[in-house]
């Protein structure tokens, strides 16, 4: 296990470096930078802009700039956002809690829905429960989050006026009132994201459980007189989760995509909306940092999935 972990960590590190190189290259080669607007402003002389570029090191060749960026990054200096006039690191840390809260609870909720629903549906295939669950999952999976998001806002905020449709990170309430306000503003973004995820995971869990439940060793487990709960959780679910873990890990970029859109719709001040606003403003250091954080998260979760996979399935040996 230790060797496996060491190897896997090394691979993850290489992936992180590779991802940063690609991201840096793409962003550096993309047309336009933060001075784009200033150039077209006749009030600012061109040599002033050239000076500023030089000061920021933007006139150096790309590989030197990358190395400088990487060295600074390792030391915790993520650059400076000219648009927001604040350190990128500080900016990201301001935005991360909202994202973690919304995306994190959405994933937890999705899992809490998908696991039992998928298992129960597979235990009685084509039953009424299964058909309702499968239909809902199909609908949930087919509706993009921006659509359900707008629908929710229309229904619960505008028509019924029950819930706020703007998420605020700086609620002025304290204590119990804060919790209540936080809950009210989180319900819609969390639900929208969770339903979409739950819909697709339910389908994975159901089909995977259905596959496993008719295997010989499940009959063996039943022949041992184990209670049905033990048969399902211990013998079926553990095997059924092996492919699900892979699917979920592979789907993580889609989750981030959905999170970005959801954050945008509900104005959640998280890193997703930060990414979009910085792209609009050509704020390269921030774009670089946010996309890099996303890349690291994807790599991290793949690493977690691999470890989990190996724990679930003792047959897997890294050759």
């Amino acid at each position, binding site marked *: 296990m230790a060797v496996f972990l060491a190897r896997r960590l090394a691979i993850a590190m290489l992936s992180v470096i590779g991802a940063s190189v690609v991201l840096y290259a793409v962003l550096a080669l993309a047309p336009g930078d933060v001075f784009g607007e200033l150039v077209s402003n006749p009030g600012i002389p061109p040599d002033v802009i050239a000076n500023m570029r030089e000061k920021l090191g933007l006139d150096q060749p790309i590989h030197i700039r990358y190395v400088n960026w990487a060295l600074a990054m390792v030391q915790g200096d993520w650059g400076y956002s000219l648009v927001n006039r604040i350190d990128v690191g500080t900016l990201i840390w301001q935005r991360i809690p909202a994202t973690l809260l919304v995306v994190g609870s959405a994933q937890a909720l999705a899992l809490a829905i998908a696991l039992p629903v998928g298992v129960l549906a597979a235990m009685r295939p084509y039953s009424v429960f299964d058909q309702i669950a499968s239909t809902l999952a199909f609908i949930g999976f087919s509706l993009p989050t921006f659509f359900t998001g707008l629908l929710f806002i229309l229904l619960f905020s505008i028509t019924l006026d029950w819930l706020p449709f703007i998420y605020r990170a700086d609620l002025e309430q304290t204590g119990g009132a804060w919790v209540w306000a936080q809950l009210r503003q989180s319900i819609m973004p969390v639900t929208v994201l969770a339903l979409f995820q739950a819909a697709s995971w339910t389908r994975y869990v159901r089909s995977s459980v259905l596959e496993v439940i008719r295997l010989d060793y499940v*009959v063996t487990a039943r022949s041992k*007189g*184990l209670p049905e709960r033990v048969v399902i959780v211990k013998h079926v679910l553990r095997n059924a989760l092996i492919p699900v873990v892979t699917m979920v890990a592979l789907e993580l970029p889609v989750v981030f995509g959905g999170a970005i859109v959801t954050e945008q719709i509900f104005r959640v001040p998280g890193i997703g909306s930060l990414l979009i606003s910085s792209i609009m403003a050509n704020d390269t250091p921030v774009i670089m940092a946010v996309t890099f954080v996303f890349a690291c998260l994807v790599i991290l979760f793949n690493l977690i999935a691999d470890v989990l996979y190996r724990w*679930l399935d003792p047959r897997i040996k890294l050759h």
Partner: protein
Amino acid sequence: MTTTPLLEIRDLHTGFHTDEGLVRSVRGVSLTVARGETLALVGESGCGKSVTAHSVLKLIPMPPGQITSGQILWQGRDLVPLSIREMNRIRAREIAIVFQEPMTALNPVYSVGEQIAEVVRQHMGLGRRAAVDRAVEMLDMVGIPDARRRVGDYPHQFSGGMRQRVMIAMALACEPKLLIADEPTTALDVTIQAQILDMLQDMKERLGTAILLITHDMGVVAETAERAVVMYAGRVVEEGTVDRLFSAPAHPYTRGLIRSIPRLDGGQGRHKRLDTIAGSIPSQYANPPGCRFAPRCPLAQADCLAAQPPMTSPSADHHFACFHSVPEAIAP
């Protein structure tokens, strides 16, 4: 003096509801297993042996499967109306089963020790440590070398024959009164087959377990069983002591099975198949009146198609269902 048999199946009917209608896989099977004996259940592929065996432990997938009528008396108590919960107190503790495919019958993600210990914890109330000790003891008993070390190994680290030994160890761990062995050696090499059968015989003697041995191999029947039940297309066609069945088989189907045993002393070449029964088993959907074997039977006459032949008993330990044949030795 009458003693209740360990297991008595009375007129069992088990079927499966499918899109094309009810598949009647078992059509009125009756048999008994006495304490400590080995009863062989013989018949060709698809005749309903496994469905009969699985019905006893209610391991038939329901739906689509259903026990439509009949009784399964376990020490006099009918198992058919029991709930799964109640069955769980009988499974493994009183009646255990071993399957045909050792490669797929064990859960790949748990060690063999855990899979044996699990059943022991469930039924014998042993703690974790004691249950693992019991697993080691059982593995040792079924002939797994170095059991103490191998108890933590996973199924994929064992060969097919070794896995079947593990399955048998698991099945016998709670010392059940009856072991149903559903073609336990069919998937294995011939040499391994013999070893496993020997080991089963040995375990039976040590633990006093009765065995319901399912097989399609008359050679296995001759070597291991005291009595045999021959099934054809969901029905019992002949039943008796192995001695009787081999010295004076009555039903044309049984006679065909005995003639098809490969003989070592055949004139040209060693494993020469002397005879096989022509034709194939009838459709499981059709329900024509008369003998199910008629289309393949060399003795068939017009009356065979009109009615079901009843069981006749030339002696107390021999029964068969045929209008025209009589028990007699097969000419060499």
